[in-house]
C-alpha cells in the first residue's frame, strides 16, 4: 500500500512536470473553416505537414456545417471565443476589418510588394492601407461544363467558342417530349446559381459595359451594354426556348442527371461531378464575345488572423498563415479540393495549365474580375427578380433591368452610407 502511494505520488509529480514543460514550449492555435469533406481533408494534410516542420506548434481544426458557419464565426470572434486563424469568404472581410476583429498581416513576413507580384491581381481587394488583412490559399473561377454523351448524340464536335455558337449548340442539344415539354435543356439557367456572376462580370463586359463604378459602390449596368446582355441571357429561355428556370429543381442537378447539355459553374463543382457515375463531362473556357472578348468571375476564401491571437499564439498564427499561402499548400489544395492556386507560379505550371479539367478554369483566372459585394444574397435576389419579372409578369428587358439596377443600388447605398 505504502509503495503504491509512493508510486502514485511519483507518477503525479512526473506528469505535472511534463505538463508544465510541455505548456512552456508548445503553442496550440485554433483554426476554423466550414465543413466540406475535401477541404477538411486538405487542411488535415496541411496541418500535418506544418506540425512536422514546427514541432512546437499544434493546430486544432474545428469545422461547422456551411449553413451555420457565418453566424457561428460572427458570434464567436467578437466574444473572444473563436479561432486564432479563421477562414472567411472574401466578401465578409470588410465587416470584420471594420469591427477590428482581424489583425493585419505583418509587413516583414508578408511584404505587400511581394504579394502583389506573386498573387493573382484580384487578391489586392484584401489590402487595407499598406497592409494585407488576409490571403487565400485557393481561388475559383467559372467555366462551361458540357455533357460529352449529349454532344456526341447531337453530332456536335466540341464546346462553343463564342456566345453565338453557344446559342446554336444549345438549340441542337435541346430535347422535348411528345407533349412539347422540355426533357433535356441545351444549357441550364438560373440567376440563383452561378449565372448572376456570369451576367454581372462576364456578359455585361462582353457586350461592352462595365457593371459597376466607384469600386463596386455604384451600379452601372443600366446601359445599352446591360440591355444587350440581359436580352442575350433571357432570350435563351424566352425566345430560343433552349432552357427553363427550375428545370430539375436546380441547374447543377439537371447537369448531374445528364439532362442538360451545358452548364456554367465554378471549379468547386469538379469534386461533386467526379463522383457521378456514368456522366461523361468536359470543361471549356467560357465562350468569348463576337469580338473575342473574354471575361470571368473569380471568388475565394481567405485565411486571416483574428484579434484573439496574441503573443506566442500570434507568432504561431503568422507561421501557419505563411505555410497555408505557400506554393506547396496550394498544390495540395488543388489536388485534394480541386480549387485553383492563388498564385500564378503555382497555378500556371505546365501540368496545371494544360490539365483538361483545371486548364480552362486557370485560363479564366488570367482575366477574371472579382465583384465586391455588400450583401451577396440581396444583390443576387435583385437579378433573380429581374428575370422573374420578365418570366411571370411579361416585363420588358429595359424596364426590368432598370428596376433591378435601382434595387441593387439601394442595397449598396444602405450598406455604404
Amino acid at each position, binding site marked *: 500500500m505504502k509503495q503504491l502511494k509512493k508510486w502514485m505520488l511519483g507518477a503525479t509529480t512526473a506528469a505535472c512536470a511534463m505538463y508544465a514543460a510541455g505548456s512552456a514550449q508548445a503553442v496550440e492555435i485554433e483554426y476554423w473553416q466550414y465543413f466540406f469533406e475535401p477541404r477538411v481533408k486538405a487542411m488535415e494534410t496541411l496541418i500535418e505537414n506544418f506540425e512536422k516542420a514546427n514541432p512546437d506548434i499544434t493546430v486544432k481544426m474545428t469545422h461547422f456545417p456551411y449553413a451555420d458557419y457565418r453566424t457561428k464565426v460572427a458570434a464567436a470572434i467578437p466574444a473572444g471565443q473563436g479561432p486564432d486563424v479563421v477562414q472567411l469568404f472574401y466578401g465578409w472581410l470588410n465587416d470584420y476589418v*471594420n469591427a477590428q476583429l482581424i489583425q493585419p498581416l505583418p509587413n516583414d513576413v508578408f511584404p505587400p510588394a511581394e504579394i502583389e507580384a506573386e498573387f493573382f491581381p484580384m487578391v489586392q481587394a484584401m489590402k487595407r492601407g499598406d497592409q494585407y488583412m488576409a490571403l487565400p490559399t485557393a481561388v475559383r473561377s467559372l467555366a462551361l461544363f458540357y455533357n460529352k454523351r449529349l454532344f456526341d448524340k447531337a453530332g456536335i464536335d466540341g464546346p462553343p467558342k463564342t456566345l453565338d455558337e453557344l446559342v446554336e449548340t444549345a438549340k441542337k442539344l435541346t430535347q422535348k417530349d411528345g*407533349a412539347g*415539354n422540355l426533357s433535356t435543356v441545351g444549357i441550364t439557367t438560373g440567376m440563383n446559381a452561378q449565372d448572376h456572376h456570369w451576367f454581372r462580370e462576364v456578359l455585361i463586359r462582353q457586350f461592352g459595359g462595365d457593371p459597376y463604378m466607384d469600386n463596386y459602390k455604384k451600379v452601372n449596368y443600366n446601359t445599352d451594354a446591360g440591355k444587350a446582355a440581359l436580352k442575350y441571357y433571357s432570350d435563351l429561355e424566352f425566345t430560343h426556348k433552349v432552357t427553363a428556370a427550375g*428545370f430539375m*429543381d436546380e441547374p447543377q442537378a439537371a447537369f448531374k442527371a445528364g439532362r442538360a447539355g451545358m452548364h456554367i459553374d465554378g471549379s468547386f463543382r469538379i469534386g461533386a461531378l467526379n463522383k457521378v457515375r456514368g456522366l461523361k463531362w468536359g470543361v471549356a473556357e467560357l465562350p468569348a464575345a463576337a469580338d473575342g472578348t473574354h471575361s470571368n468571375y473569380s471568388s475565394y476564401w481567405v485565411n486571416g488572423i483574428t484579434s484573439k491571437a496574441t503573443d506566442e499564439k500570434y507568432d504561431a498564427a503568422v507561421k501557419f498563415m505563411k505555410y497555408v499561402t505557400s506554393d506547396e499548400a496550394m498544390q495540395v489544395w488543388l489536388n485534394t479540393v480541386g480549387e485553383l492556386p492563388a498564385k500564378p507560379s503555382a497555378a500556371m505550371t505546365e501540368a496545371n495549365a494544360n490539365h483538361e479539367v483545371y486548364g480552362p478554369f486557370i485560363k479564366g483566372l488570367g482575366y477574371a474580375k472579382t465583384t465586391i459585394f455588400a*450583401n451577396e444574397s*440581396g444583390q443576387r*435576389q435583385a437579378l433573380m427578380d429581374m428575370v422573374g419579372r420578365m*418570366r*411571370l409578369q411579361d416585363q420588358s428587358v429595359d424596364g426590368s433591368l432598370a428596376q433591378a439596377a435601382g434595387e441593387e443600388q439601394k442595397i449598396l447605398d444602405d450598406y455604404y452610407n
Partner: protein
Amino acid sequence: MGIYKRLSISQKQIVWAWGLLAIPIVFYVVVRFYPTANAILLSFQEWNLLGSRNWTGFDNYVKLFSDPTFWKVFGNTFLYLILGTPSSLLLAFVIAFHLDKLRFMHGTIRALYFLPFMTSAVAMAWVWRWFYQPVPIGVFNNTLATFGIPQIPFLNSTTFALPSILAPAIWAGLGFQVIIFMAGLRAIPQTYYEAARIDGISAWETLTEITIPLLKPTIVFLVVFSSIGFLRIFDQVFNMTTNDPGGPLNSTKPLVLMIYDTAFNSFDMGYAAAQTVVLFTVLLVVSLLQLRVMRDK
C-alpha cells in the same frame, strides 16, 4: 438555518412553494423574457453582429413601414392565416366527425392521419417540393403530361406558389387537429344525442345545435393554436423555395422568413429585431382578438 427553524408550518410551505417555483421562473426569465426585452431594445439599434450596437431611434421602424417588400410579406402572412386556418379546421372537423362514427379499423385510420404530424417538416417539405417539379421529375406534372394536360407551374408561379406551399402545411397539421376534435366529440355526453333522437331532431340540427356549440372550447383552442402556427409558418416555405427564398417575386415569403433573411443573410440585426417586434405584436393582437370573439357570453 436558524431563521428557517423558527418559521411556522404554513410559512415553511410558502418558502418551499416559492423555492420550487423559482426554477421555472428563473428559466423563463433567462430564456424568454430577457431575450424578448433585448430584442425590443435591439429594434431601436443598428448592429451587424460584429461591431458595436448603435442607437438609431425609430429608423428601423420607419424603414420597415416604407418598405414595399414588408407590406407584401405582411399580406402573405395573413394570406397563410386566412386560407390555412379555416380550411384546415373544416377539413379536420369533417374527418373527425366521420372517423368518430367509424368502427372498422378505427385505430389504424386514426394513426394514419396522425402520422404526418410526427414526420419532420423539413423532410416533408422536400418531398412535396419534388412532387411539384415540372416534367421530367415532378410526379404531379408527369401525370398531367401523360394525359396531355398542360403543366401547372406549382412553385414557379406567383398565383399557385402560396397555396402549393400551404397544402403540405395543412396536411401536416391535420392529424393533430383531428385527434383534438375527436377528443372534443367524445366529451359531449351521449344523453344529449339520445334526447335529440327522441325528439326527432334532424341530423343537421343535431350538428348545428348540439355538436358544434358544445365543441366551442375545442374550436377556440384549435383556432388560436393553428392561427399562431400559420402566422409563424417558416419550415415549409424555407425548404420548398431554397432556390429563390420566399419567391418567386416574394409571392410566398412570410414574415418569419423575412426576419431570417434580414438577420442571417443581410446581418442587419436591428432591422430584423424591428420585424420581430411587429410579428410579436401581430400574434398578440390576433390571439387576444380570437379569445375575445370566441369567449362564452
